[in-house]
């Protein structure tokens, strides 16, 4: 087992100017489960493939443990990878698929058999060992791909969106299985996903990437409670955080008739580049239903109510039309999401008043997008 270190690792695809991964600095501790997450094209898969040795590193280094593996062949890195489409060998049985790496390594047959059977038991695959991949369901193939990685007993597991081909229910199930399996085996794991729910539920820590640049690394709680910039704020959390650009005056953030008080530290942290504006973020659950005229309250026209049983989410627009487009949910459109009491949801077309609970607003510089002290 070993730690993983990206040291200024950069990958530029031939014929492109902008790096796909730009000077990535990242440390994954021994036994840690790190999730790389970001929108498509953010460089998360490329980062993983650089670690696997399937992608060249143009500058910088990658270390596994204390060993510099930047120029080491994939086969000599002592890693195992689970691919998005599983990449099982179609002409080999499940047992041969799982034991292929050991066979190449020259492990004695009896030992291969033993380790394959052990992994099959963990993954509930024992009765399928003699089948070919084509005779398995999607979930079973996924487990075979996992088994192929486990059997190796590698230093690092690499997983590239291994759940994206499963249906929603199986995905949730497998998610917990993989997470608990990783904790049991204690193998350092780097896991790539575009699904922030997967990231939040599985990772010891999460690294968010965008356009090849690392945005923030932290525990799921840190990412959720203190996003380092507007992008992370909008990306982590489901439904997404509401983000609005407000004008700063009189120690308050103002938008139309809404005035939200700001702290002294926040005001002091503003610079000239911000041009008297500030970006405020508030999660759907940070909004309380209020009454007209309360300080800091604003009106929402309800477009849609999403009831999930335990929660209800109101999707709407600021009632003040001229400023409505200043508030967006993290998803981008000019809409606002609020969590309301599921037993007394408003109706579509209603107008409700909400206000941000004190201390639960996130403040960001409108010029740099970086988090400001509250």
């Amino acid at each position, binding site marked *: 087992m070993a730690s993983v270190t990206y040291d200024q690792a950069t990958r530029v695809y031939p014929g492109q100017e902008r790096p796909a991964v730009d000077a990535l600095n990242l440390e994954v501790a021994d036994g840690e489960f790190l999730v790389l997450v970001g929108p498509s094209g953010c460089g998360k898969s490329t980062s993983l493939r650089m670690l*696997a*040795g*399937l992608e060249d590193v143009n500058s910088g280094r990658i270390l596994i443990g204390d060993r510099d593996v930047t120029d080491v*062949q*994939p*086969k000599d890195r002592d*890693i*195992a*990878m689970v*691919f*998005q*489409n*599983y*990449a*099982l*060998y*179609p*002409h080999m049985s499940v047992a041969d698929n799982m034991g*292929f*790496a050991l066979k*190449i*390594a020259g492990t004695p047959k009896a030992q291969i058999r033993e380790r394959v059977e052990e992994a099959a038991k963990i993954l509930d695959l024992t009765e399928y060992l003699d089948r*070919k*991949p*084509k005779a*398995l369901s*999607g979930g079973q*193939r996924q487990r075979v791909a996992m088994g*192929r990685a486990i059997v*190796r007993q590698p230093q690092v597991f*690499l997983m590239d969106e291994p759940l994206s*081909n499963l249906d929603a229910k199986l995905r949730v199930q497998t998610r917990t299985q993989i997470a608990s399996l990783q904790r049991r085996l204690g193998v350092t794991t780097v896991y790539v996903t575009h699904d922030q729910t997967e990231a939040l539920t599985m990772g010891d820590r999460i690294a968010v990437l965008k356009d090849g640049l690392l945005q923030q690394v932290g525990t799921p709680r840190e990412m959720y409670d203190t996003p380092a910039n507007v992008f992370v704020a909008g990306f982590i959390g489901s439904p997404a955080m509401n983000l609005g650009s407000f004008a700063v005056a009189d120690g308050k953030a103002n938008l139309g008739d809404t005035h939200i008080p700001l702290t002294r530290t926040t005001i002091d942290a503003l610079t000239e580049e911000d041009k008297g504006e500030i970006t405020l973020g508030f999660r759907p659950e940070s909004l309380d239903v209020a009454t007209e005229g309360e300080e800091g309250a604003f009106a929402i026209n309800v477009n*849609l*109510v*999403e*009831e*999930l*049983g335990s929660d209800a989410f109101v999707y709407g627009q600021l009632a003040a039309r001229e400023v409505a487009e200043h508030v967006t949910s993290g998803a981008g459109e000019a809409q606002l999401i609020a969590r309301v009491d599921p037993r007394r*949801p408003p*109706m*579509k077309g209603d107008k409700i008043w909400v206000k941000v609970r004190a201390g639960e607003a996130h403040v960001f510089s409108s010029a740099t997008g970086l988090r400001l002290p509250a």
Partner: protein
Amino acid sequence: MTTVTSTGTPAPPVAAPGRNGETAGGDRAVATVSHTVLILWSIIVILPLLWTLLSSFKTSSEIFASPFALPAEWSFDNYVSAWSEAGIGGMFLNTVIVVGFALVLVMLLGGMCAYVLARFAFPGRRAIYYLMLAGLTFPVFLAIVPLFFVLRNIGMLNTLPGLILTYVAFALPFTVFFLYSFFRGLPEEISEAAAVDGAGEWRTFFQVMLPMARPGMASVAIFNFLGLWNQFLLPVALNTDQDNYVLSQGMAGFASSAGYAVDFGSLFAAVVITVVPVLIVYVIFQRQLQGSVSQGTMK
């Protein structure tokens, strides 16, 4: 779940019996026509083969007296005389040696060449590929004379190894062309999985990619086998030693041997001897063709 809940009953199943009936009728018409055409085609193909087979058991006079009757006596005399007296046996052996070696070589070299061209980026890759394509378009007639001199200069004219080498060169472009697209189509992820599993390039090729390319290899092998087994021009020009004759040359000798002396019974026996291996090979490989390429890799 939204506040706007649907309280209506489930939509009734779409029932359109008239349309279904029409479609079924249309299907039947298409099936009837296509089956009729296929049956006619099969008859056209099979009858001459059958007639040849029957005639190979008759004597020459019987063939002329009652060309469509069953043989009076099922005798293998024609086969015996064709095999030993006409020398078909030796030619058969020559053909098996030449085609066998050439086929193994061309599949091995062609597979490796196509794999490298399809999956590795290196300078000159396109140039090599287009050279291969050029070989495909180059008429073999134009190459006969140069080939003759090349083989003579390296001392391989009128030898079986010389013919094998020529066959390999002759069949390589098509093999590479066909397998190139096949290897391109195989999922990249699997070779990457093999690389991570610790397989080197050779092992990845022979133990992972080649087995996956089996359907493609099988089809090319059949094409090549047919083409080389029936190859006539190259041996006529480059293999003039009677001892090294291949079957196609023997056949031609049979048919062109002076007028009345043609032993038609033996000729037909020789034809059957020539055709049967082709049929056998086709039946064997045809099963391989049915395998699908990337099972287990799909979503």
